[in-house]
């Protein structure tokens, strides 16, 4: 008995030694940075982030950060609505319960209105005791992501993901029907019509549910491809132009294509209904978030893995508008631990940390990580995903939807209008005229 115990003890020691060696291995790339990672040893930071694949992977890296810095991290993963309510109350009341919060980057201009609720990061980035410029390599961060967190020339957060939208299409069905991959809005309509064969498979699925981050995220691409604009000349001339002939035409197109070729009830569809329709194979194509890739190619979650082709979103007279979205991590301006909070952001967005996560999440904020052969290899298994996304990234710009403090209200209101057209409550003309009047009043 004693012998067994002794062996167990030796075994336990070996395991812990191996564990500590491997942790030491993992820490090594961070120690190359010419800063004192342990300058805030013993402090604690509270982090509230959204439930999202990349955030879950960050959570797995928290022990490494704690080991590296001696800072304790309370990491809270919350559903998006709940996160927004909790963090917004905390930000607005300036209590500083959370040091780091994650937010839809479209909200940053709202949060940054003076007196700003979130902290500009420029001082931290430029402080050599907090950031090693060579190691952190600021210029390696993707420019459109840096634009996304830039409000009036100041950096208000770290953008995490390269999310845009892709045209997801079923290669097998396209082949069987003998049609080519749609490149224009017209092709897109024809393909949806040709593939629509309910109830087995519908021509397409698109988001219908209201919200600046739901239907408007996708609709904007069609609206702008039709040649419409949100404003006369954003941000110089803020006269809304939602009910221009192109705007009405784009909205009508979006509603019509859903009413004709999408499953019943689409006016109520969020990204999650679109995703599960892709996984179950009930729709032949969609335009939606590129980060669906890992979920629809996972054979455990998806009955259609391996059948997908990827392309850029269709374009029109107004050009090709690749949707853009990212989550940003920002520091609460009421936080009492801004130093340690910045170390955490720096750690998360550093090359080694992003490298490690990207293999699972297929997303990153850095060019050097994006172009790594290992990542390309992982993604290459899935047909044209990497190439399509790589090509699409050239078109992405931060002001796909206009970034300004009142965007959220404006976007949600347009979302309600678009939803009512899809639901058949109003015609596109009525809805766009009404929302135009509402937005004019909002911006008075």
């Amino acid at each position, binding site marked *: 008995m004693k012998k067994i115990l002794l062996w167990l003890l030796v075994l336990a020691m070996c395991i812990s030694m191996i564990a500590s060696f491997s942790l030491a291995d993992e820490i090594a790339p961070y120690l190359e940075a010419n800063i004192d990672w342990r300058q805030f040893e013993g402090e604690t930071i509270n982090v509230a982030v959204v439930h999202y694949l990349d955030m879950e992977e960050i959570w797995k890296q928290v022990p490494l950060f704690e080991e590296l810095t001696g800072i304790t991290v309370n990491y809270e993963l919350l559903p998006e609505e709940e996160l927004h309510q909790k963090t917004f109350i905390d930000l607005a009341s300036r209590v500083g319960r959370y040091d780091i919060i994650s937010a839809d980057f479209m909200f940053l201009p709202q949060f940054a209105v003076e007196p700003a609720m979130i902290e500009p990061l420029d001082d931290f980035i430029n402080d050599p005791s907090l950031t090693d410029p060579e190691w952190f390599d600021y210029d390696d961060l993707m420019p459109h992501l840096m634009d996304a967190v830039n409000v009036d020339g100041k950096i208000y957060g770290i953008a995490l993901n390269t999310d845009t939208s892709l045209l997801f299409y079923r290669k097998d069905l396209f082949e069987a029907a003998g049609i080519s991959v749609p490149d224009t809005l017209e092709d897109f309509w024809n393909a949806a019509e040709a593939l629509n064969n309910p109830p087995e498979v519908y021509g397409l699925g698109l988001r219908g549910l209201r919200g600046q981050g739901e239907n408007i995220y996708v609709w904007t691409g069609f609206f702008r491809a039709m040649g419409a604009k949100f404003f006369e000349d954003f941000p110089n001339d803020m006269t809304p132009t939602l009910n221009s002939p192109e705007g009405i035409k784009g909205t009508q197109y979006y509603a019509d294509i859903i009413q004709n070729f999408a499953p019943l009830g689409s006016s109520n569809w969020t990204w999650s209904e679109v995703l599960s329709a892709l996984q179950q194979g009930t729709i032949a194509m969609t335009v939606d978030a590129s980060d669906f890739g890992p979920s629809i190619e996972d054979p455990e979650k998806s009955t259609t893995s391996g059948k997908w082709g990827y392309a850029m979103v269709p374009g029109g007279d107004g050009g090709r508008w690749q949707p853009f979205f990212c989550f940003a991590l920002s520091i609460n301006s009421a936080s009492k631990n801004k130093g340690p909070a910045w170390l955490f952001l720096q750690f998360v967005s550093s090359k080694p940390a992003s490298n490690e996560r990207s293999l699972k999440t297929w997303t990153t904020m850095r060019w050097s990580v994006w172009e790594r052969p290992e990542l390309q290899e992982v993604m290459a298994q899935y047909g044209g995903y990497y190439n399509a996304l790589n090509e699409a990234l050239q078109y992405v710009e931060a002001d796909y939807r206009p970034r300004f403090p009142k965007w*959220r*209200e404006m976007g949600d209101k347009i979302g309600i209008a678009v939803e009512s057209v899809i639901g058949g*409550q109003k015609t596109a003309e009525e809805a766009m005229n009404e929302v135009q009047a509402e937005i004019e009043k909002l911006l008075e």
Partner: protein
Amino acid sequence: MGKFSKFSTRNFHYFSLLPVVITLIFLTLFPIIFTLFLSFHEWSVETGRPIFNGLANYINMIKDNNFWNGLRCTFTYTFLAVGFEFILGFVIALLLNQKIKFIGVFRFFLILPMVITPVVIGLTWRIMYSPSFGLINYFLSLLGIAPKAFLSQPQTAMYSLIFTDIWQWTPFMFLMIYAGLQVLPNEPYEAAIVDGASSFQVLRYITIPLLKNIIVLAIIFRTIDAFFSFDIIFILTKGGPGTATQTLNIYTFYTGFNWLNLGYAAAIATIMLVIIVSIVFLLTRIAGISLMEVD
């Protein structure tokens, strides 16, 4: 005995109420007064802090289509939901007030919907209403009826929400009325039977008058609750399609939390408070009871 301790002994009952009063002030009075205060201010993204703007919020509200639409939705929702809940709850309570076998089992299953978290109920019903894999459409298809998108059609979305609310809250009505029935005295019934009253007459002239206070109370509770209903609507439709189910409470949420017009949201909340207080006052008046009465 010192002066103070004499004073405190004499007024002991006031002192013992103090903790409750202080808690109440913080939990109810303070938020209400603060809401009222905010409703006369503009507090939005641009202002950053509350700026007094008099009655502007209230004047804007009169001109705001969304407000009137919200009011209409709220009244439809409250009136239909509470009405059906009352009728169903009352009938079920009368039925179960007989000597029935396994009554405990019935009661258990009847109360179940009420104790489930609203979020879970919302998600469950969202799946049930789904046109592609929902249970309701499956049963309709057995009858040869084509699938319907209940939550995405302006004509059906509101009724689907009301149906869910009825499903969840009828048990509450049932429970209140059932409890009332259980404690009714036997004598009037015996007298009525001796006088040869029909069962409808018994119901009309004895049961309902005796239950009146309980019924009014149950209706008041449910009216307040339905008037401020949020979770089910938010999960099932978010106020859509378009604005077909955007009740005042949902609109206030959007205005305050998503669009950060806290002053305007406070003004709508104040009006909602005024409306609900008037309704409660009216209900008690009609029933001839007073909530302020102290025995």
